[in-house]
């Protein structure tokens, strides 16, 4: 018997899916990876391996690490061919009749998402896990196998690059 039951796992899917979708969308931004396909594979893989989940990390962190690995595999298969039509900025498109202030806010959000999608995979990975997921550096280290000091240095570089890209775009 594993740490959690299969029934419990199945009941958690509706709560975990939207959060994972957001993070993997951000992580896979700029690629033509289908996030829904990745998540479907993630949940099925996790279900089959549920007995291996020992509860040392949170269920979400475990699932995120599976989804992240599947996404990285997809990057490798596709050699990360950019497909700008699938960037998060386009996914969350702006309605044509929104007021000007909303358009301005939306432009800022789109610029930010585009800047994130242009980050190298290595750096975007940390930004998604730390900033979007709120994982601790210890948890990220568990997922990535990279020590926390290196992760913090990467986070510095990621945020520096984001700031430079946004400055270049006049944000």
């Amino acid at each position, binding site marked *: 018997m594993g740490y959690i039951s299969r029934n419990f796992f199945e009941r958690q899917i509706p709560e975990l899916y939207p959060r994972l979708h*957001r993070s993997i969308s951000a992580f896979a931004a700029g690629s033509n990876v289908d996030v829904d396909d990745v998540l479907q594979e993630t949940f099925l893989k996790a279900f089959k391996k549920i007995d291996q989940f020992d509860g040392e990390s949170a269920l979400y962190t475990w699932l995120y690490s599976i989804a992240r690995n599947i996404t990285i595999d997809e990057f490798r298969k596709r050699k990360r061919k950019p497909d700008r039509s699938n960037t998060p900025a386009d996914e969350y498109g702006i309605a044509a009749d929104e007021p000007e202030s909303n358009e301005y806010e939306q432009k800022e959000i789109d610029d930010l998402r585009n800047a994130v999608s242009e980050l190298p995979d290595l750096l975007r990975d940390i930004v998604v896990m730390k*900033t979007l997921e709120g994982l601790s550096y210890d948890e990220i280290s568990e997922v990535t196998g990279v020590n926390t000091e290196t992760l913090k240095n990467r*986070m510095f570089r990621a945020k520096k690059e984001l700031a430079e890209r946004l400055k270049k775009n006049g944000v």
Partner: protein
Amino acid sequence: MNRDELERKIAEASDGDLAPAALAELEKELANWPDLKQDFAAIMNLADLQQAYPVEDKVQFSSQINAIQRQIRELNHPKEEFSELSLHIFKKYALAASILIIAGSSALFLSDNAMVNTTEAAAAEEVFVYQTEGAASDNYMLQIENLLLDQNSDEY
């Protein structure tokens, strides 16, 4: 502090993980590193990424979630092959089947005994009837003989 350490402190500060005293110490240290001080200011002014990536409502993903749950249920209860299904049913109802077989056999055995009894009774009855019939015929023959004797005695 060296450059790497300062970069890590800047990352921690931007994550909101640095205590006010540590933050003040970092700012003091950065006075000696003008390029890092500039980076620090730019990073601290970055927009909130959480705002750029809101978590959407689960209702929007209901079809994907249902599809996953359906596949998981199929994995949990795979469709059984006919042979496996038969075996499963046999195992499940083995006790009931055994009882039925024993009951059936007993019933057959008892009905056979009943048949034997009936046959024996019939045979006994047949013998009895035969004997009765035999006795009647004997009487009949005796009567004829007596009649013949009477006739003969009259003739003499």
